[in-house]
């Protein structure tokens, strides 16, 4: 299993600023991902955080807006850059160990409000 923590749990930010969200896993994992969830909606995959290389972004998400780091097997960060109110959402990180029978684990989420 894996336990994931995220910091901050919530934040209120001004338009045009940036926020970095941290994701820490209590054990080494193979894959880490970042998702966005609008209130009452499903989860949308932003990117795969690759250890030691650039993240792989999904359609509609770009590195300049959502730079991601993954310096090791237990930690990743997502930055939301030059924020606008449309970026208000919950951001979740997830992790998996690529063990076929295992699940993908999710962090508690970061609730971001942009004014």
């Amino acid at each position: 299993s894996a336990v994931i923590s995220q910091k901050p749990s919530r934040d209120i930010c001004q338009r045009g600023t940036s926020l970095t969200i941290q994701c820490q896993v209590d054990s080494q994992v193979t894959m880490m991902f970042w998702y966005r969830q609008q209130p009452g909606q499903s989860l949308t995959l932003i990117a795969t955080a690759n250890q030691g290389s650039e993240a792989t972004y999904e359609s509609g998400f770009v590195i300049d807006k959502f730079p991601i780091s993954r310096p090791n097997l237990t930690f990743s960060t997502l930055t939301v850059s030059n924020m606008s109110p449309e970026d208000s959402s919950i951001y979740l990180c997830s992790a998996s160990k690529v063990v076929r029978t295992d699940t993908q684990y999710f962090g508690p989420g970061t609730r971001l409000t942009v004014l």
Partner: protein
Amino acid sequence: ELKVEQNPLFLSMQEGKNYTIYCNYSTTSDRLYWYRQDPGKSLESLFVLLSNGAVKQEGRLMASLDTKARLSTLHITAAVHDLSATYFCAVDIDRDDKIIFGKGTRLHILP
């Protein structure tokens, strides 16, 4: 592009009744997940289904997978109020564990 469709999206039911949530997906996959999410909370893993015909049960919930029909079901038996939550299915689309979520089924069980 993989599409994952759940139905119904909203379900209000009486305690004690049985019901089924359906999850259809549009391309081949070798792994399907069911998650539960309570309001304001993160996702709790319920089931991982790996092969055609797989069936898993936990308490009043039972999940099954038909890979040929690209269909999974989550069956609720004798519902109780504590099962009120949003249930998501998610499909693994490649060997790197990237998963795509359905829109979720918001389940409200009336006492």
